[in-house]
């Protein structure tokens, strides 16, 4: 509708414009890297934020961009984590970066295989299927104690230095830089993907799969592709956790982990790449702060805050971030969308 009123040059111009770097984005990443020197005492929690942000980014790729609802994203997270931990434990691949890539590929392969299940049915079936996949993997890890350590977690993992140079120190400095760089690189890749014609076709599938297929988009093939990519991202996030902790446990597959991830996206917003990162920052700091303040009753406060967030609406709470949101809008395809449609609540 809207597109019809724009000339082809205008459309091309807008699409290209979206892919440009906004100054605020540059500022965001400069600030992110500045934390390496500014907050050395916070590196441990920042490490958690970095892998959680990557994990959330992964979910956003399928939820925010392709409209696939998943409550079992922890399946790939855990799979990547165990892969990385096992590779290190049995000294199959000693270099963490290579192990990270392998873990990501392994999780991608799993994502590819399970994507055929996810293609079937509607949102509700997808929730059930993704949930089921995570449960099955958790149980497999639990039953094969000889390999995974079962309910005791995988013990005795020793990590070799990153690139043979940087040891995972107790203060978490090198671990944090490592996670942040990985997050940044994969963010760049994701940014490239969502702004590509492929990314745009995903968004049209999300909005109306029937119409998308009518204009010649191979819906299933594209969903399989993005699901596979997102699974790889989740696997790498899990591998980062396993490598920085030198440990893996069944808790990585837990339903709570998938559910928390959805909360992160609810807080940060879906359908723009910074949503997951901002959500991860807010969620982790909130969680950490409340759990220190009241170790026994923090879940109550988190719950309350979430209810408030949903009732009042993120827009009104985050009004002060308007410039930032404008930047997000620039990244986003929203401006091209007819009024009245919104990604909220998807």
């Amino acid at each position: 509708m809207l597109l019809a009123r724009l000339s082809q040059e205008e459309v091309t111009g807008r699409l290209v414009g979206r892919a440009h770097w906004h100054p605020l984005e540059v500022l965001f990443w400069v600030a992110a890297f500045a934390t390496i020197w500014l907050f050395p005492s916070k590196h441990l929690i920042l490490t958690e934020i970095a892998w959680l942000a990557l994990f959330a980014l992964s979910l956003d790729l399928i939820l925010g961009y392709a409209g696939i609802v998943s409550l079992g994203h922890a399946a790939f997270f855990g799979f990547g984590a165990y892969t990385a931990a096992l590779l290190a434990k049995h000294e199959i691949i000693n270099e963490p970066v290579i192990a990270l890539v392998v873990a990501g590929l392994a999780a991608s392969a799993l994502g590819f295989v399970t994507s055929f299940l996810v293609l079937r049915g509607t949102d509700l079936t997808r929730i059930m299927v993704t949930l089921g996949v995570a449960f099955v993997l958790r149980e497999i890890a639990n039953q094969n104690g000889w390999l995974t350590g079962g309910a005791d977690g995988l013990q005795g993992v020793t990590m070799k230095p990153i690139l043979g140079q940087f040891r995972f120190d107790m203060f978490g400095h090198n671990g944090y830089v490592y996670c942040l760089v990985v997050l940044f690189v994969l963010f760049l890749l994701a940014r490239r993907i969502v702004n590509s014609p492929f990314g745009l076709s995903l968004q049209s599938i999300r909005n109306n799969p029937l119409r998308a297929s009518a204009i010649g988009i191979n819906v299933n093939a594209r969903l399989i592709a993005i699901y596979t990519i997102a699974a790889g991202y989740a696997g790498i996030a899990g591998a980062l956790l396993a490598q920085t902790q030198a440990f893996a446990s069944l808790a990585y597959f837990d339903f709570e982990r998938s559910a928390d991830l959805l909360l992160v996206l609810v807080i940060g917003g879906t359908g723009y790449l910074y949503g997951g990162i901002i959500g991860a920052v807010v969620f982790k700091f909130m969680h950490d702060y409340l759990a220190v303040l009241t170790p026994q009753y923090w879940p109550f406060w988190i719950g309350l805050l979430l209810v408030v967030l949903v009732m009042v609406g993120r827009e009104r709470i985050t009004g002060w971030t308007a410039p930032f949101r404008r930047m997000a809008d620039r990244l986003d395809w929203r401006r091209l969308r007819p009024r009245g449609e919104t990604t909220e609540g998807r």
Partner: protein
Amino acid sequence: MKAYKWMAALSAAAIGALAAGHAGAQETVKVGLIVSMTGQQASTGKQIKAAVELYQKQNGDAVAGKKVQVILRDSGSVPDNTKRLAQELIVNDKVNIIAGFEITPAALAVAPLATEAKVPAVVMAAGTSIITERSPYIVRTSFTVPQSCVIIADWAVKNGIKKVVTIVSDYAPGFDAEKSFTERFTGAGGQVAQAIRVPLANPDFAPFLQRAADAKPDAIFIFVPSGQGGTFMKQYTERGLDKAGIKLIGPGDVTDDDLLPNMGDAAIGTVTAHFYSADHNSPKNKTFVEAFTKAAGFRPNFMALGGYDGMHLIYEALKKTGGKADGDSLITAMKGMKWESPRGPIQIDPETRDIIQNVYIRKVEKKAGSLYNVEFATFEAVKDPVKAAKK
């Protein structure tokens, strides 16, 4: 001249403040207590927290000229949380000691950290035998699962139980329990008809109990972690096993004092071996239970003892080192320490840093309208049988 005087006074004040600040930092010994206050093992966290608070209330927060400050963190029953929290406590809060650890994976995850940072880790709950072997800086004030299992096997043989079905939770302490019981029991001529393992998280015992009943054993040996005994007992009664003449034996986790009052009369007659019962008959325990119940509002269970004695160990070690709080001095001081706990006489094994304690045989009985594990036999100074067998 006036300006100089002013400056001199200022710098003197600054140095004074710095020195005082420095001295202040030295005066405090920080204990990072990481337990689960939320999640599956929340009951353990509650017990340990209450016990640690009670100990500090009774003994003050100062020892050997130092102030002991406990920093509580919630692990949410997730082992990778425990590890990150321990790391933060050591690196940022500069704690001298870490303590708590409700489940084995949490304790194991922290072990390499304790070694690297040379910070003593006082295990107040987790009961797998191997934990203390994973770092020379780990001491344990709770128990090891095999300690009780071996004793109950001896008792079963002596009391005419010949055929047993074992039911354990599917994780390391469960395997420990199954293995140590079976070895001792079959070694003495008993027969284990079936060995059943149930999932650790949210277990449904009903189908397993049916299988156990079908084997028609004299007794069922049961190990579940503290907190799951209630569910087990309920399903045991629902299946009518209590009336089928199948006895229930095991280490004391299943008739945990925390849950026992609400288990109902089906629990009566259950025979367990364990290191602590709230009913333990000693003046020291009577005062402890009274003070604990008054302060916390619930009965102490064996996890509370792990916390209470853990604090005692920390206090006594500080007294012995004269307030020196570095890891090596504290661990050396803790080794071989002996004292009279509400649970009876206990000692930290100087070789393994594990606990040596009495194990009691108890039977669930109704006393003054409430269910208790009533002790009727004592095995003195039991060492961890797994580590003892390795020598």
